[in-house]
């Protein structure tokens, strides 16, 4: 303890209180916190330092950041990859509440790095089977009637069929899903502005990134709920999510929601680009590969308690996330007895179409080893399958669209671990 500590030194304490009085009278400008109280002073009967002196100035952060005590809540970036130009990072799902993913923690999957696009220099070209090919600036696009909707976005390899055994945390396993409120213009509105010709069947979207990412979107989806998005959770898109303009195809595999959008080519046929032939196709045990497997089927995961956490016997709220590319989540069932029985979890409102849905189930752990798991049911009646049921049909090499139930094994010590490991 220093000589100046008011608790240890009565005269320092008197000086400190006098300063407090001065601060209260509005004389002291920008008071710095003393910051050397003992940790337990924040618990009763103590009064913590942060109560006894004004905090940081208003506007001391012009773009607010999380508390410094939350600095460990970050994207889950894989270590030791051969390169990071075409790679992914995951949302720390087990650290988050609610259904919206903070923009700074939204998952990433880029194929040619993250471009640094000047919005005033960016252009969108709409061409192909349209009456009037168009060049649009960002200002033009923001003039169209706008719409905001909450939808999840999920990479189709979330996780791969081998990776499901290696992951330790909920983020390792299914952290390539995030959810946001998206604002933009309906793709249908922009296509109508150019005037679709009757032969139009597909729209090939291309990014302005170094991968010039190219995916073909069926015209039905373009004219249904597809958006061209410029804002996410109220602010402009982040560079990692496609700033200044991206496609958003609710419920479809994330790769199709082309980021950094610069071109829409209206065609009769898909492009059959590398990303819809060599990649994002699902290899079956007989050697054929399923193509144009767009929709992300219903899935769920318990985020608490989850892998690498440790629990004590007694009360716990089991909570997690469920979602379906086919619409709304109808229900989530949770098993706390290694899959023998399943109970209905409560769904947190709002339950939105093609959005993350939060579920909860109160539970008292008796201290016996067990396995807990969740399975989602969507509004079409589809039930999230077990890994066994899924792989009995698709084998182990289809890589994409693994939506199997994720079990968490709880040891007598309370340690929670991947039930597949």
């Amino acid at each position, binding site marked *: 303890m220093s000589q100046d500590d008011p608790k240890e030194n009565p005269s320092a304490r008197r000086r400190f209180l006098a300063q407090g009085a001065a601060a209260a009278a509005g004389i002291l400008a920008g008071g710095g916190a003393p910051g050397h109280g003992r940790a337990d002073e924040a618990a009763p009967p103590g009064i913590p330092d942060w109560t006894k002196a004004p905090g940081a100035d208003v506007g001391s952060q012009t773009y607010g950041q999380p508390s410094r005590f939350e600095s460990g809540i970050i994207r889950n970036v894989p270590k030791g990859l051969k390169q990071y*130009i075409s790679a992914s990072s995951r949302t720390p799902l087990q650290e988050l509440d609610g259904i919206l993913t903070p923009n700074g923690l939204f998952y990433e999957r880029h194929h040619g790095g993250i471009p640094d696009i000047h919005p005033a220099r960016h252009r969108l070209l709409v*061409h192909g089977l349209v009456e009037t*090919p*168009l060049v649009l600036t960002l200002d033009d696009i923001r003039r169209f009637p706008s719409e905001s909707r909450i939808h999840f976005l999920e990479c189709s390899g979330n996780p791969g069929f081998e990776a499901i055994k290696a992951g330790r945390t909920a983020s390792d396993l299914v952290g390539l899903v995030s959810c946001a409120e998206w604002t933009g213009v309906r793709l249908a509105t922009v296509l109508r502005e150019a005037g679709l010709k009757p032969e139009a069947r597909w729209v090939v979207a291309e990014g302005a990134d170094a991968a*010039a990412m190219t995916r073909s979107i069926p015209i039905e989806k373009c004219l249904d709920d597809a958006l061209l998005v410029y804002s996410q959770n109220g602010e402009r898109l982040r560079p990692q999510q496609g700033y200044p303009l991206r496609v958003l195809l609710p419920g479809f595999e994330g790769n199709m929601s082309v980021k950094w959008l610069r071109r829409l080519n209206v065609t009769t046929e898909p492009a059959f680009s*590398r990303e819809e032939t*060599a990649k994002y196709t699902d290899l079956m045990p007989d050697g*054929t590969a399923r193509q144009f497997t767009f929709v992300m089927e219903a899935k769920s995961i318990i985020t608490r308690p989850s892998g690498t956490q440790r629990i004590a016997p007694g009360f716990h709220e089991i909570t997690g996330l469920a979602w379906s590319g086919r619409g709304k989540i109808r229900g989530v069932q949770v098993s706390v007895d290694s899959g023998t029985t399943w109970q209905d979890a409560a769904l947190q409102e709002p339950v939105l179409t093609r959005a993350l849905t939060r579920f909860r189930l109160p539970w008292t752990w008796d201290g016996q080893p067990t396995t807990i798991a969740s399975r989602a049911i969507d509004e079409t009646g589809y039930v999230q399958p077990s890994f066994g049921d899924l792989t009995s049909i698709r084998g182990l090499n289809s890589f994409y669209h693994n939506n199997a139930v994720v079990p968490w094994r709880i040891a007598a010590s309370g340690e929670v671990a991947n039930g597949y490991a």
Partner: protein
Amino acid sequence: MATRRVAALAGAALLMGIGGGARSTERLGIGRPATQTEIAAWNIDIDRDGRKLPPGSGSVAQGRAVFETQCASCHGSRGEGGAGERLVGGQGTLASAKPIKTVGSFWPYAPTLFDYIRRAMPLNAPQSLGDSDVYAVSAYVLHLNGLVPDDATLDAKSLAAIRMPNRDGFVSDPRPDVKP
């Protein structure tokens, strides 16, 4: 009286106008028309049948030189892989327990190879190769896979004519396929 009737008629006309605009062809007048030159400069999409392949040609020998200087550092000197993916081999493995998916074993259409290399490779300098170099290096990658001879020269017509081994390997999406 008369003024009120005119206002009501104008209101009805406005409503009809809005309805028509939402329904069909009425434009909002946003953006400007693109010229054919602008479209041609940006449109690099190649179809699977190769009808949109550009003029130019390149030989396996030229492609070997391009590959060694611009691709081998990541893909290995014979396309065996490194920081970049393996590009060669794996034919006959797709139905096995350890399938190897490469240009030779998995890609269904040769024109897609031209499309992808032109738009995205080399990873560190995409869209830096001229069309003839793209033909040449595509020819070399196909040659490494045993799909064109050592003395081949590829152009729009001959690249489009190559039948890839896995051309018929793709099926449509049958999901939902897993029943509880």
